[in-house]
């Protein structure tokens, strides 16, 4: 089965690394996806008019229908908008974390386990809320990391807001919010949201901030070092 892939703007620009590693990871795990041709921006959080947001995503879903009615998007904002525009059950919208699970990972050939590594899996806001569009399994990153022998920290801050949406508008607010998250966590930061990555990386000092896809590619031996 092939999934229709909606990368979204960030994954073509600042989050290029997420796009590349996601494609690679999925092909390693035997999941096929094909990019939706001529897709346009879903509107992210920029429009006050809900009708506009829904219209944008509907157009993209129309284009997806030529590939598949199973649609994947990795940016939490895109996932939210796609899910909100899909009310009739005609399409199924997935975030990669809806598809990844311990069984699937362990069925692949593991080259590096995560013993002696400490991680803070950080989901941010829109993968966790609002509940209609959030991930079903809100501990999937923890489960996978633990199954691979890694240690997990920072559970109480994993769904706190990093201020990503305000970053270029109110630097101090973003700084203060990410400070709370950084201070109450340990080890390598593992994220899936392009904006959480940008904001946390900006303020993280020596702390490592990586995408979950990179972590899994390390486990599969496609990335040499964490």
């Amino acid at each position: 089965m092939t999934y229709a892939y909606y990368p979204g703007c960030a994954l073509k620009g600042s989050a290029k690394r997420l796009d590349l590693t996601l494609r690679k990871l999925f092909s390693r795990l035997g999941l096929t996806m094909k990019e939706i041709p001529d897709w346009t921006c879903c509107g992210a959080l920029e429009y006050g008019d809900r009708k506009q947001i829904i219209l944008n995503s509907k157009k993209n879903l129309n284009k997806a229908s030529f590939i598949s009615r199973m649609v994947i998007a990795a940016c939490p904002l895109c996932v939210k908008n796609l899910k909100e525009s899909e009310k009739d059950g005609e399409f199924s919208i997935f975030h990669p974390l809806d598809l990844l699970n311990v069984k699937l990972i362990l069925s692949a050939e593991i080259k590096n386990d995560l013993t002696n590594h400490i991680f803070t899996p950080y989901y941010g806001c829109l993968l966790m809320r609002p509940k209609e569009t959030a991930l079903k399994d809100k501990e999937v990153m923890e489960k996978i990391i633990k199954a691979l022998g890694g240690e997990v920290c920072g559970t109480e801050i994993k769904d706190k807001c990093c201020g990503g949406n305000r970053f270029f508008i109110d630097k101090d607010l973003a700084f203060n919010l990410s400070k709370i998250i950084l201070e109450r966590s340990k080890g390598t930061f593992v994220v899936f949201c392009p904006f959480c990555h940008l904001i946390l990386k900006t303020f993280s000092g020596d702390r490592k901030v990586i995408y979950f896809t990179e972590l899994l590619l390390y486990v599969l031996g496609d990335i040499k070092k964490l």
Partner: protein
Amino acid sequence: MQKIEERIFEYTGYKQEDFSVCLGCKICASVCTLNDVGFKVNPQELLLSLFMGLKIKNHVLINLCTSCYRCTESCPWEIRIPELVRAIKEITDKEESFTKAMKESIRIFGRVYEPYVILRVLPTIILKGYVKYLKRWKDYINFHLPTFAGKKG
């Protein structure tokens, strides 16, 4: 001209009576992200003003709300306060230059083309002291070319 309130309802899909269910429990205020960092913000105030037809466009949330949906998650009625805030901003033209630049980019290219957005808000980036982070942003700079996806369909 249509009243601001009416346009807010049109934009968000809410009706005035949807806010009359608000219990005044202020759970939204107790979980609001902004209160973590020392603001004293009460999202319910905004609803109350809207319900009573009072002025809303200068409410402090308009400038601060991070769209984290924590209020929505905890509210017994799941009222989507961040979506109200976004509607108010768009209707009263209180959107930040950054948001405007992103919308511009979507209009021209069909997508958010980051180099274009950065150029449009360059003065802000320089004046507000973001330059010192440039070193950390190496990773994010990808010189892809704009597409004109929006133009075709």
